[in-house]
């Protein structure tokens, strides 16, 4: 232990003697370890951190899937959930939920907050209890009973009810119904994301079907039961359901899944890619610091050889140098943790909504363990080569003040050059990844050009079923409201749609064409579906390419009509006109019948997360009276004024309604692309850091090389080399390393970027312009990094270099 302290003391003293060098290596390590800690805390928080439930190791989701269709797992129907509850003994408790919007009136005008409809047994399944009052009971699941109670969040209880201890029993008007508050959930409970209200789930037995998939389901395993046992039981159960209900459930399976995996979905791939990227950055940082340490070890040859001459064993010298590198790594890690904390605050500030309950980015024990691991790894990796080289020193040579160092310095120079080549190659891979992400983001952003944004303002209105139960109630409301908004001064056009283009929501249906007698409801193509009013396409700037727009004659009792996008028309009727063709949607009651295509509009991406699908189908709102509609206004009125005026119009009809998400179309698109912007920004940041570190590395190597070769450069000058020859010598050396690094990097990037195929939009993972552009940027940066030492080399005085008097 005494020896260890002695090494530590030597290491600290030695580092303190060269504060500039120490500061640089600590800064490089802090960057490398800091962004690794930050990204790991993101990845761990999003993908791996156990959900905030009791017994997280025993809580799993239950989902349905249709392997034949190869689609994402989907939710359970209420009937299936009840069967799981009753017939899967592996689960001691099962609960479910779906998210709903809540228009709530508490102490001011109506506002839009988030709520969840939950089964009465969800809370005990996940192990949460109210801090006041009680949860739901089985009776609350009875149709009609479920309209009465509501649980509220502690946030609402404190902020709106001033933590009233007598809150239980007070009424609350939510989605057109007056409910009774039965309890207050703890501050940290916002299940499943950032909900403030929970209302019990109930189903009208007359409306229940096996294929009304809506409920996200979790089950808690009974003690001692394995996931595999639960999996076997739900599969058996679903097989029976499918056998007994072939019309609705044929081919459908049921599976037990990891709760994190189910929640995170496709983001996981991007996040893991990001973790891989920052590991690259750490490797670049390690190579860089190893290079600096090698240079330093060369400068300390005499000191180290003296230690060896005085009896230190090679192992002792290696340990001393490793201690130094570990000290640097630990100092870097300490600063890196602070950087990670700050970085997390910066990126989370870009999230345009409240953090979901399950997302915890704390830098706590698991994250710190990762940091300790990479710190030890880094300290050993970048310290090992210099330490071994020092330990391998030839004493006689090192102690002799002569010039016979060529042989031993060659090996070190080769190692240093190899490290720079590795840095350049790794940086190039990162830059290519970031370049691809940026190109993909630009392509995705360009989707906004497919719709009109200038002067377009959107806001949403939710008509509660409780107060607008019939289709006619909803169509009448919107007819009246749209008419009044159209009459507002400055408003040029107004219309509405159930799902705005470039949204992040999915509302798809399988579409069947009457012209294809073999069309199968299970295998029919999927189309995005939206309900809209006449004039929507012209308001939002989607061109009508054939046929007509909806009009007042397309009422609820008129023949059913639809408008399809060009992609839909081409897919269903590739060789003829779509106008006059008839379609229907899988799962629709037979009584609805066929709809006739009356128009074809331009292709617009409905869902920015699935930009490849521009098959769209629209129905008139009078025939598909959705309750949740986006009002689209084209006007010259400032957005805030327009929002206030639209709100007044709506509340003049129903004071309980809120105007939801009033945004300009530009802000709406900005909002929907935030995740891509964030990932692109992070990738770009990591790549720039990598480029910077690699640039510093190359600069360091070249500066060291120039210093080491001062005599040689002086000699060359004495023998007739002019400044340009010296410049070429130094820059040429750097460019040789760069070309080798770029070559290795390009080949590696070609192989590695394939994993990005799934997250890129309209950009090939091997996009030639990106590869070429990045290589040029890197080469230019390398030339710049070599330029300063090269300039210094041209100023070498041959006389001084050759040690004249």
């Amino acid at each position, binding site marked *: 232990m005494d020896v260890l302290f002695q090494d530590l003391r030597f290491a600290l003293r030695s580092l303190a003697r060269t504060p500039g060098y120490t500061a640089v290596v600590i800064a490089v390590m802090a960057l490398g370890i800091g962004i690794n800690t930050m990204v790991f805390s993101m990845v761990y928080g999003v993908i791996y951190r156990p959900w905030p439930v009791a017994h997280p190791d025993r809580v799993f989701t239950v989902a349905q899937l249709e392997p034949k269709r190869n689609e994402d797992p989907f939710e359970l129907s209420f009937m299936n959930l009840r069967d799981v509850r009753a017939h899967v003994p592996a689960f001691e408790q099962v609960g479910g939920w779906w998210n709903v919007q809540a228009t709530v009136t508490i102490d001011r005008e109506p506002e839009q907050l988030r709520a969840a409809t939950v089964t009465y047994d969800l809370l005990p399944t996940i192990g949460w209890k109210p801090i006041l009052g009680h949860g739901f009971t089985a009776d609350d699941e009875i149709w009609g009973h479920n309209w009465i109670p509501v649980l509220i969040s502690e946030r609402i209880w404190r902020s709106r009810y001033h933590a009233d201890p007598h809150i239980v029993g007070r009424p609350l008007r939510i989605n057109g119904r007056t409910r009774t508050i039965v309890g207050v959930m703890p501050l940290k409970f916002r299940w499943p994301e950032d909900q403030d209200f929970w209302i019990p789930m109930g189903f009208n037995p007359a409306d229940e079907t096996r294929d009304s998939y809506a409920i996200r389901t979790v089950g808690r395993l009974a003690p001692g039961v394995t996931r595999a046992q639960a999996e076997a039981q739900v599969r058996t159960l679903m097989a029976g359901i499918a056998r007994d209900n072939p019309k609705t459930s044929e081919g459908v399976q049921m599976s037990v899944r990891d709760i994190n995996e189910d929640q995170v979905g496709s983001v996981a791939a991007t996040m893991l890619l990001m973790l891989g990227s920052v590991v690259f950055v750490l490797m670049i940082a390690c190579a860089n610091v190893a290079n600096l340490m090698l240079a330093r070890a060369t400068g300390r040859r005499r000191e180290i050889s003296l230690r060896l001459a005085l009896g230190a064993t090679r192992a002792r010298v290696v340990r001393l140098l490793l201690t130094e590198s570990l000290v640097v790594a630990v100092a870097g890690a300490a600063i890196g943790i602070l950087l990670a904390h700050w970085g997390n605050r910066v990126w989370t500030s870009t999230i345009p909504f409240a953090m979901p309950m399950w997302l915890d980015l704390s830098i706590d024990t698991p994250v710190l363990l990762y940091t300790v691991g990479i710190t030890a790894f880094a300290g050993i990796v970048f310290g090992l080569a210099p330490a071994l080289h020092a330990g391998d020193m030839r004493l006689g040579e090192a102690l002799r003040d002569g010039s*016979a160092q060529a042989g031993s310095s060659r090996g070190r120079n080769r190692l240093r050059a190899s490290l720079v080549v590795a840095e350049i190659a790794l940086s190039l891979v990162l830059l290519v990844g970031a370049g691809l992400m940026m190109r993909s983001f630009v392509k995705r952003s360009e989707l906004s050009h497919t719709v009109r944004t200038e002067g377009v303002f959107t806001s949403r209105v939710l008509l509660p079923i409780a107060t607008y139960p019939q289709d006619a109630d909803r169509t009448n409301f919107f007819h009246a409201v749209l008419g009044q908004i159209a009459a507002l001064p400055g408003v040029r056009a107004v219309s509405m749609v159930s799902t705005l283009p470039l949204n992040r929501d999915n509302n798809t249906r399988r579409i069947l064409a009457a012209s294809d007698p073999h069309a199968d409801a299970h295998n029919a193509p999927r189309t995005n579906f939206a309900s809209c009013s006449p004039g929507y396409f012209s308001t939002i700037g989607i061109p009508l390419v054939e046929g007509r727009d909806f009009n007042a004659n397309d009422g609820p009792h008129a023949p059913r009509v639809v408008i399809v996008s060009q992609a839909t028309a081409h897919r269903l009727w590739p060789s003829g006109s779509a106008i006059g063709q008839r379609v229907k949607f899988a799962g629709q009651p037979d009584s609805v019948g066929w709809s006739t295509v009356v128009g074809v509009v331009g292709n617009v991406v409905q869902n920015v997360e699935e930009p490849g699908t521009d098959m769209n189908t629209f129905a008139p709102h009078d025939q598909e009276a959705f309750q949740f509609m986006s009002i689209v206004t084209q006007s010259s009125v400032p957005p805030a004024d327009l929002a206030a005026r639209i709100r007044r119009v709506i509340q003049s009809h129903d004071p309980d309604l809120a105007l939801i998400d009033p945004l300009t179309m530009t802000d709406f698109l900005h909002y929907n692309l935030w995740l891509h912007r964030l990932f692109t920004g992070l990738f770009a940041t990591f790549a720039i850091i990598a480029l910077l570190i690699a640039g510093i590395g190359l600069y360091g190597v070249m500066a060291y090389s120039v210093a080491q070769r001062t005599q040689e450069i002086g000699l060359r000058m004495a*023998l*007739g080399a*002019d*400044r340009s020859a010296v410049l070429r010598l130094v820059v040429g050396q750097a460019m040789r390393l760069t070309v080798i690094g770029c070559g290795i990097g390009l080949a590696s990037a070609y192989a590695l970027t394939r994993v990005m195929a799934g997250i890129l939009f309209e950009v090939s993972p091997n996009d030639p312009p990106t590869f070429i552009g990045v290589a040029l940027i890197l080469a230019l940066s390398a030339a710049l990094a070599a330029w300063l030492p090269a300039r210094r080399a041209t100023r070498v005085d041959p006389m001084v270099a*050759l040690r*004249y008097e």
Partner: protein
Amino acid sequence: MSATLAPPASKAASTSDRASAESQRLLRLADVHKVFTTEEVETHALSGIHLEIKRGEFVSIAGPSGCGKSTLLSILGLLDAPTTGEYWLNDRAVQSLTFSERAHIRNRQIGFIFQSFNLIGDLTVADNVELPLTYRDLSPGERKRRVTESLERVGMSHRSRHLPSQLSGGQQQRVAVARALAGEPLILLADEPTGNLDSANGEAVMGLLRDLHAQGATLCMVTHDTRFARYADRTIQLFDGRVVAEEGA
């Protein structure tokens, strides 16, 4: 084969004598001073040096440490410029040339032999000899021919693929001489060429220089070893930056 120290040719010399002397003269220094200024202290390294060296002459510059021998040699080699005074090399005033012009002349007209050999450790013997030729527009074939010839002249052609670290000190200095010869310079400037060698190797290197001189090479050598100074046709003694004596004139 005579050379004159200051002053230059007398008024009595005939025109034809003067023309003949000028045609034989390779370099001439006239009233050269070199002053180093450090921390407000002026050090006069050279004071009023007059020197002429004729083609084919072997001149040694001797004197104690710090007397200005190497400063003088660096000015002769265009590695440094005089503070004042004139320097004519091959009938061209060279005291105030640009960096590039001086590099050009060094490369084509001057060959250097250093005390510590100054071979580049990462280059082979042949590469080291070729080095000055790489700064000229010579074809690879021509460069190779000259390298081979130079190494043969110093008896080192059999070690052309070796690295300097694989050679003895004497062999390294032979390679350095070959490098100086490869460019076919007008003059060889040698700075203590035996300073890092034992006496046997020192003798061998001096024998080599003597042979080169016998073949017509012009040499100027700085040395503090009187044994080796005798190899020269003429020895100039420096002290405190001044010429204090000349032997063999």
